C-alpha cells in the first residue's frame, strides 16, 4: 500500500488538500471576456467586410454589451485580487512571458475602444442623442471617419482577448488539465460562439439571423472538435494528464461537463439551429440561453477542475 502524507500538519487554506484559490470571479471574467471578444470580433469583421448595413445587430447593437461585459469582468478580476491596493502595479510594466500581463494591457486597450465604438453609433441607437459639446461631436465625426482603422485594431485585440483567456490557463504547466495548447483556440472559439449567440438574440433582421446562425453552428462544430481533440491529447499524454482527463471520463465532473456543457450547451442548441434551418420554428431565446449558460459552466468547470489536477501528492 502506498501512503503519502504531510508530517508537519500543513493545511494552508485554499491550497490543501486541493488547490482552490480562484473562485467564481475568474471563470466569470473568462466568460465575460470571451463574450466581449466574440461580439467585438464580429462587429469589426463585418465592418471590414463592408457589411455594416446587412448586419446591424452585429455591428451596432450587440457591441453595447461589450463594454458592460468588460467592465463587469474587470470588476470581478479586481475583486479576486488579494492585494487590491496595489492593482495599479499591473500597469507599470509589460511582461511578455506573462499572459496575465497581456490581458491587463489588452483590456486596457480594448475597453475604451469598445466604448468608442458604441459611442460612434449612439446617434443610430438612441433617437435624438446629442453629444452636447462641440469637441465631442467633432470627435465623433473623427471616429466615424476612421472606423475601418478602429475595426482592424479591434479585430486584432478581440482575437487576442479571446485567445489569451485560454493561453492564460494553458501557460500554467503545473496544472496538467490546462497545460495543453488547444485551450487557447478552444476558449477563443467558445467566446466567439457566445458572442454570435448574443448577436443572434439581439438581431431583428432575418438575413442577419440566418448568417449568424450558420456561423454559430460552424463555431459549435469546431468547438466540439477541439474538445474531442483536448481529451484525446490528454489520454495520450503523461500520467498526470491521463489523471486529469479521468476527472471528466468517470470522475466528479463527468456529468456536469458532458450533460451541461457539451450536450445542453453545444449539441442541443446546434440541433435546434439545424431544425430552425429545416423549417421548424424554434424560439431563438432557447438555443442562445443554452449556449451562454453552457459557455459559463464550461469556464467554471475548467477553472475548478484544473486546480484539482497536479503533479505531486
Amino acid at each position, binding site marked *: *500500500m502506498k*501512503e503519502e*502524507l504531510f508530517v*508537519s*500538519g500543513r493545511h494552508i487554506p485554499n491550497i490543501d488538500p486541493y488547490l482552490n484559490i480562484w473562485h467564481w470571479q475568474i471563470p466569470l471574467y473568462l466568460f465575460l471576456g470571451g463574450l466581449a471578444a466574440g461580439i467585438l470580433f464580429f462587429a469589426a469583421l463585418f465592418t471590414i467586410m463592408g457589411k455594416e448595413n446587412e448586419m446591424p445587430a452585429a455591428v451596432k447593437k450587440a457591441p453595447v454589451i461589450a463594454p458592460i461585459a468588460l467592465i463587469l469582468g474587470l470588476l470581478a478580476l479586481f475583486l479576486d485580487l488579494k492585494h487590491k*491596493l*496595489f492593482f495599479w502595479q499591473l500597469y507599470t510594466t509589460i511582461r511578455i512571458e506573462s499572459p496575465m500581463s497581456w490581458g491587463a494591457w489588452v483590456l486596457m486597450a480594448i475597453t475604451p475602444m469598445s466604448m468608442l465604438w458604441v459611442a460612434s453609433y449612439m446617434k443610430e441607437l438612441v433617437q435624438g442623442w446629442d453629444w452636447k459639446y462641440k469637441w465631442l461631436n467633432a470627435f465623433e465625426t473623427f471616429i466615424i471617419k476612421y472606423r475601418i482603422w478602429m475595426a482592424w485594431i479591434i479585430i486584432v485585440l478581440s482575437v487576442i482577448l479571446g485567445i489569451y483567456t485560454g493561453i492564460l490557463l494553458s501557460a500554467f504547466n503545473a496544472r496538467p488539465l490546462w497545460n495543453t495548447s488547444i485551450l487557447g483556440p478552444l476558449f477563443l472559439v467558445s467566446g466567439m460562439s457566445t458572442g454570435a449567440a448574443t448577436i443572434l438574440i439581439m438581431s431583428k433582421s432575418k438575413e442577419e439571423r440566418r448568417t449568424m446562425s450558420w456561423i454559430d453552428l460552424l463555431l459549435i462544430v469546431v468547438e466540439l472538435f477541439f474538445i474531442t481533440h483536448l481529451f484525446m491529447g490528454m489520454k495520450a499524454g503523461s500520467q498526470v494528464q491521463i489523471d486529469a482527463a479521468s476527472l471528466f471520463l468517470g470522475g466528479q465532473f463527468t456529468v456536469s461537463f458532458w450533460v451541461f456543457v457539451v450536450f445542453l450547451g453545444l449539441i442541443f442548441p446546434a440541433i435546434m439551429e439545424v431544425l430552425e434551418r429545416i423549417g421548424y420554428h424554434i424560439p431563438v431565446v432557447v438555443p442562445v440561453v443554452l449556449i451562454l449558460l453552457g459557455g459559463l459552466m464550461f469556464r467554471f468547470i475548467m477553472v475548478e477542475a484544473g486546480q484539482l489536477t497536479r503533479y505531486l501528492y
Partner: protein
Amino acid sequence: MKTRRDFIKISAMGLGAAAIVAGTSRVGLGLPLFGSESKPGEKGSELRRISTYCEVCFWKCAGWAYVNSEGRITKVLGNEDDPQCNGRLCPRGTGGVGMVYDEDRLKKPLIRVTENGKQTYREASWDEALDYIAAKMKAISAKYGPESIALFNHGSPGHYFTHLLGAYGSSTVAAPSYAQCRGPREVGFETTFGSQIGSPEPTDIRDTRCMVLIGSHIGENMHNGQVQEMSDAIDKGAVIITVDPRLSTAASKSKYWLPIKPATDIALLLSWIHVLIYEEIYNKEYVAMHASGFDQLKEHVRNFTPEWAYGITTIEPDLIRKTAREMANAAPAVIVHPGRHVTWYGDDSQRSRAIALLNALLGSWGSRGGFFMKEGAGIPDHPHPEYPKPAWSWFETLNGKYPFAKMSVTNAFIDASIASPENTHQIHGWIIAGTNLPMAIPLKSQMEKALQELDLVVVVDTMPTEVTGYADVVLPECTYLERYDDLRDAPHRVPTVALRSPAIEPMYESKPAWWIAKQIGERLGLHAYFEFEDYKEVLDWQLNQLGSSLTEIEKTGVIEFPRKKGSPYLDNSQPHVFATASGKIELYSEALATAGFDAIPVYKPHPEPEEGFYRLIYGRAPMHTFSRTANNPNLTDLMKENSVWVNPRVANLWGLKNGEYTYLKNQDGIVSDFPIKVRITERIRWDSVYMVHGFGHNRKELSRAFGKGANDTELITNVMIDPLMGGTGMRGNFVTFVSNNDQTKKEVES
C-alpha cells in the same frame, strides 16, 4: 453523594481576562497604499540575546532567547557551546516561545470556593493564596506531621518545593518519571553495573559502530543529543538494529528491523545472549576482567536458542544470529540502548537487566562508542541549616514492597493518600508542580479517590491542564523564558553549567517557582532556608564557588569545566571497581536472588488481545512533549491531534477509511472521551494499534487542545506493576473500535 473535590472547569468567564497582551496572532492589518516591503533582515539588528536553557523536556538544551526592541521574544536558538544541543534546538525548543504568548495561560492565583452550592474557582491575590496554603500546611503538619505533605514534581520547579518540604520536615517527594517511565532500567542497570543510567543517558552514539534499539524510537522521541548523534553515526556507517513491532522512524533507518511480536523482547534478548556465549563471540577480555557470574549466565541461557526464540518472537533464527554477530563485530563500540520509557509489561526491570547483561557481554559499558562515564560539575548547595529529620519518608509509603526502588513510587503515594487499614503512613496534602497527573499516571480512578480525601491540593503550573481541575489552590507559574532557575548541571562527557535568565518579565501575575516556594517558606517560619531576595543571588554565589560569576556566564550562556574523575572511558587493562556488592559486573545477581527474584531474567508470556481487540501501543512525536505542549500554537500548527495507526488488513476487516474518526474502547469497557483519526498504514503490525501520547485533552480552557485526538492514558486501566520497583507497566491494554460512546462497531462482512 457530594464529592469533596469536584473536578472544576475553569470557566472562561472573565477569569484572568484582566491583562490582555497583544495577541499571539501574527496577522497584521491592511497596508497603506505605498506599503513598505517586508524587511526580514532588519530583525537581526535590533535583537538582544539572553541566555536560557529549555524546559520543554528534560534534556535542558542551553539556548539564546532573542528579544526585539518592542520587548517581545521573537525566537530561541541553541547555544553553540552546549554539548547537549550543539547550537541546534529541537522543534519543541524552537517553538517554546509559543508557550509564553499562549493566551490560555494561567494568569492569576485561583482558590476553590463553593458558590450557590457549586464548586468553582475565584481569582485571588498572591497573598491570599499563599496564606491559605501556609495555613493548611500548618494544620496538616500539626495534626499528622509535616511528612504527610507530599510533592509530585517534574522539571525545574521541583527543586524549590523539594527544598521547601525538606526544610519543613518532609522528604515525601515523587516524580512520575520514575515509576511511569525510566525506573525499571535504573534497577536493571544498577543490579548489573552498580550505576543507574540517569538523565541524560550516557550513550556514546556518535562513535558507536552498532546501536541496538529495543522499542526505543529515537527520532520520534526527540532526545536532542541522541538524535543528533544518531545522525553522526549514520554518517559514519554505523549499523542500526531496531526491535519494534512498528516501523518507527529509527527502524526505517536501520540496517535490520526486527518486527517483533509485542511483549516478547526478553526472549529475543536471551537468545542473543545465547548466541554471543555459545558462538564465543562475546567480549572475552572485558568479561574476564570485569564480570562475575559468567558460568551461571551461560548455564541459564543454554536452552534459549534462536530457534526457541523464533517460536515466541516470530523473528527468524538466521536473523537473530546475524544481528548478534553484527553486535559482536562492532564490540565494544556497540550500544544496546537502555531506552527511557520502559514501563511496559511489569517485568521491565528484568528486561532492562537483560539489556544490561547484553551490554556487559559486549563490553560496551565504559567503552568508546558504548557508554561513557558521565560527570557533572557538582554545583554546591546554597548554604542553609540542616533539614529536620522526617519521622518517615517515601520509603515507608512502599509498605515493604518494591525492594529495589531507589526513588519514590507515585502510585504508592496515591495509595498512601487513601485511608485504609494497610495504610500506616497516610499522606494528607499534595503539592503538584510541573506535571499533569491525570495524563501522566494510569489508574485515574485511584487518583480521584485519593483526591477526595486530601486536606490540601496545590497545583503549580503554567497552563490550565487537567490536574488544575482538582486543586484547592492553583498558582500560576511563569514560563522558563520569564525567570531565573537553578544552574543546569547535566552530567555528560564533559561537565558543563548553563544559565537560565529571564528574557522578559513574567506576564500577567505569574511568578517563578523559587519565589512561590520562598513565600510559602517564609509564612511557615523557614526564613533561614531562603536567605536571598532574588534567586540570582544564589546563582551568583554558586558560580563564585565554581570560579566564575553571573556576569561572566551571562555572556556565554554555558561554561565548560574540566573533568576531575579521569577519562570518560574505562581503562580495560586494569579492573575497575563497580558499585555493586561484589565490585564486579554482576552477570548473576546475588541481590536479586536473595530478594526472591530471578537472578537472571526469564521469559514469561504476557496476556494477548482477544479477538477483535488490538494491543494499544503509544509513543512520542518529535514536535510535542507529553501532554504539555498540546496547546502551544506553534506546535499545534505542526501536529494538532494524534491518530490511531491501523494496519490495512485490520482496517479492511472493520471497514475503516483513512482519515475517518473512531472511538476506542478498551478491554475493561472504557471508551475514549473523544474520537481519534484513523491512519491506515503498513507501518504497524496487525495485532496492535499505535498512537502518540498526550492528546485528547478535556479542558475547554485549553482552546487549541480541547477535544483534539484521544487520550491514551484513560484507556490504560490494566496496569502491571513491576514487583522490583513498582513501575506501572502500561502496554497490556487492548482496544477495539466503536462508532460512538456505547456500541461496538459491527465487523464488516467480507
